[in-house]
């Protein structure tokens, strides 16, 4: 089971923001879209960073005027990315080890989607359900 199978159902609609926009705009966008992270693209549509709820909360602890800061100041610039051929096991290990919850997916350098920890959990749950169902059918000779 790999990233391609998740993206096939999820679509390629990645919500992005420019590095010069304010944190205030970033959180409004996250709220409107009900998501936890935004991909940051510069004016050439190149991936320059990722900003998550966690980044914002952590900064808020240190300074209360966080809302007026530009996204570029808080975003993570060393973005870990995936490819459509990545398998779910690797992604789930990666997310656990590196404590990331969102993985932008690139194909030939182009952003084709984003995988969240929620996608991985759902896929693992469905895979598990599917395999258990199939094994039970086989073992019992009927369902």
């Amino acid at each position: 089971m790999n990233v391609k199978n998740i993206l096939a159902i999820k679509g390629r609609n990645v919500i992005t923001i420019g590095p010069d926009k304010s944190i205030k705009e970033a959180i409004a966008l996250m709220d409107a879209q009900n998501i936890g992270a935004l991909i940051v693209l510069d004016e050439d549509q190149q991936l320059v960073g990722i900003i998550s709820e966690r980044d914002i909360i952590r900064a808020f602890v240190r300074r209360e005027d966080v809302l007026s800061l530009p996204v570029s100041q808080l975003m993570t610039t060393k973005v870990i990315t995936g490819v459509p051929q990545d398998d779910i096991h690797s992604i789930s290990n990666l997310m656990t080890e590196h404590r990331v919850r969102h993985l932008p997916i690139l194909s030939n350098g182009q952003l084709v989607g984003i995988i969240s920890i929620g996608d991985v959990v759902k896929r693992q749950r469905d895979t598990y359900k599917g395999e258990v169902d199939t094994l039970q059918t086989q073992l019992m000779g009927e369902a």
Partner: protein
Amino acid sequence: MTDVGSALNPLRVAIVGAGPAGFYTAEHLFRESDLAVEIDMFDRLPTPFGLVRAGVAPDHQKIKSVTKVYDRIAQQPNFRFYGYVEFGKDIHLDDLKTHYHQICFTTGAQTDRSLNIPGEDLLGSYPATEFVAWYNGHPDFRNNHFDLSQERVAVIGVGNVAVDVARILCRTPEELAQTDIADHALEALRHSRVKEVYLLGRRGPAQAAFTNPEIKEMGELLDADVTVLPREARLDLLSQADLEKNPDKSTLKKVEILQEYARRQPAGKSRRLTLRFLVSPVELIGDETGQIQAMKLVRNELYATEAGTLRPKPTAEYETLPVGLVFRSVGYRGVPLPGVPFNDDWGVILNEKGRILKSEPRQPVTGLYTAGWIKRGPSGVIGTNKPDAAQTVRCMLEDLNQGHILNPIHAEVEAAKNLICRRQPRYISYNDWLRLDELEVTRGKKQGRPRLKFTRVEEMLAALGQET
């Protein structure tokens, strides 16, 4: 519109494709309490069940018992099966839109992925999916011919389909004669002169997609020795490190079995099944008549993606493997349906959670849904389609609640039946299928087999007393 789904105005659903995904979609709809629904399921073949009938190996009967679940669903009073009715030929999207509130496509993945290497179309090179369909009696492949007089066969791929092909090629006629393998295939395999079968995996033993029960079966074949090259059974450093960090019991067991095969001494059986790892075919080489003679393989090494997935990349080392028959088993691929938006890159219907989308702009198309392999790609096992279909049905029910459904002018069950009768008077009902099923099982019993399949549509129609 608001009372669609009530007893006086039941929700009318068309499901195109009678495999597992189609049946689970129906099951989830029937499970919905307070919903009155009438379902019509179509399949282009007279027989239902998709790959459970045409894909699962003949010597894996137990897996097929899942059809009992589908039987129970099909025998509900508000379910009708219309077999031998082809979408795009006998009925079209416009027909469905005028007769149903919602349409769900569960047509699976009808074709195979290509390798895109030179020589792929030489004589003697076939998709494994065709060989499987042939030995399972799929009517479309009844007349296919495979040159089983060749002694050396290569199967490209190490998934469970590849293993099925290799195993069937290594079974003795006596073993095959106890299964529901199609008769014409049994006869052809009786005369097989195949001696060497190779399974070629592009990654290492730890990454190979075949599952442990299938691997174990390969080591227990009556008349075939299984072997792995010791240097290919050894784990590379990246795989070792990966396993040490994330010790997965199933993978550890897989590697253990394969390493045992590398240590085995041949017991002098008639055939030999060799599992090769870290090799990819780069060219199929033919003779002057266009018949395959050999394949050029490149040796691979593994590298890790940023996310940690181990992927193959070619080295500069090559080898030539003489072979006379090649089956490529590198995946199935979906086929576009007329009038339905398709994602050509990935071979699936353009969709989001099962709602079919139009491409520009990406928005759901009212009333159109999809589930199964044609929705998410060919992945997972039979049961994986159940939660997949559940997701699609959740979307269908949400849309019903909000009134986002089609507005069929002929929503009555009889109206659809009349249309189908006009377009395909020889359609097969579920009772017709049950009759065919009974006939197959009875014929099989006489030969001590689970069933003796009908392999031509004309045979099926004749058996049902319908003249062609």
